[in-house]
């Protein structure tokens, strides 16, 4: 059973909205153009927004679990139950970075570094999935590197939206 007792209901619901929007964007942008990692643009941006607005230690992970569960129930992705890992791995990286360096949300460079780290977790997801379907090892490495490079590019681009948003929200006393 997954529970987040320390979060208020309002914060949990806000994280739920972030999770829903990750899944909605994922469904809306399934254009199948063969652009690797484009989903990381809004996934990383929304996970960072969730962590930036709700200062709980596991808020990004909670959002990741919720969006992963929704994606699993909605039948998104190609990995069956493994789809949850696609959302949880980057979320864990964001929460871990916030634990080690809480001030990274303020700077573009800091948030880009964390986004690159979080997006690079796609490498492991791809490796796990390809190993399970029994692909050739060299092909797995090539495939995972291509996927991770695309994910890092789009993840960093998405993360750059977040510092001005958080700055404006803080200056207006919303968070």
């Amino acid at each position, binding site marked *: 059973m997954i529970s987040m007792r320390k979060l208020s*209901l*309002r914060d949990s619901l*806000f994280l739920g909205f972030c999770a*829903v929007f990750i899944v909605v964007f994922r469904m809306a942008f399934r254009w199948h153009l063969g652009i690797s990692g484009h989903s990381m643009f809004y996934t990383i941006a929304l996970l960072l*927004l969730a962590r930036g607005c709700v200062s709980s230690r596991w808020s990004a992970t909670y959002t990741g679990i919720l969006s992963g569960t929704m994606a699993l129930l909605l039948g*998104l992705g*190609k990995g069956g139950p493994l789809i949850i890992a696609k959302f949880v791995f980057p979320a864990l990286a964001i929460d871990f970075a916030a634990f080690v360096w809480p001030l990274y949300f303020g700077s573009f460079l800091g948030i880009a570094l964390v986004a690159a780290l979080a997006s690079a977790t796609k490498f492991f997801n791809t490796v796990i999935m390809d190993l399970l379907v029994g692909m050739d090892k060299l092909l797995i490495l090539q495939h995972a590197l291509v996927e991770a490079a695309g994910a890092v590019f789009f993840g960093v681009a998405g993360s750059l939206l977040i510092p001005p948003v958080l700055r404006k929200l803080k200056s207006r006393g919303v968070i």
Partner: protein
Amino acid sequence: MPLQSDMVHSLKQSQAESHQADRGFRIPVGINLILSLTLAGSAIALRSPYGLAGLAGVNFIYFFLNRSSWLLLWKAARVFFWQSLVLLLLHYLRFSVDGLVPGLRVSCQLFLAFLPGMIFLQGTNRSQLVRVTNRFLSARSAFVLGASLHFLPLMITEVKEIYQVQVLRGSRIHPCDIFKPWCWPDWVSCLIVPCTVQALALAGEIAQAAKIRDFGLCAQRTCWPETENHFKSKRKL
């Protein structure tokens, strides 16, 4: 007012769903989810062409049991086509002609891994989905998941309204402005920030409404049908 209209809409939808549910036999949701996950897991575990062909047959039976529409199968077939094209190309570049059959096998595996989930979703309504999530998430998380999905249409309406008002104000947030970097600050300050504020406000309203109705007093899920049974059993005692 928007909340009231949304509630009326959801009531109508739940009535429609109950009418839909009355039409003959349906697989119980829990069993349906287990079947879906088992089929998806089998697609990853199976390697032989005969095994995959058998699994495709089982998926077809699962499709009919859930009474899914042919449109779903058409959408899935389109995904399968594009995915196969990419994978076959990758395998051809790596192994030349010898790699085409393994590439097709991998593509079939990936297709059969996500098809049961799509069928499950189409055959399951929203309230059933919340009941299912309550089995592996806490009552609170299941509520959050259900409420977030439930209020999604309302959120989208709010986002549309904010967008229209900001366009009337003269913000440069038209679809063609996405490709103009000098317009990006407008997207942030005129759309993303107000939408985030709106999401926080809506979350606050829902949380307050739930707390007024004593949500969170019990660790277990509390809802009307169960409470009614509980009272009935108490009266008998």
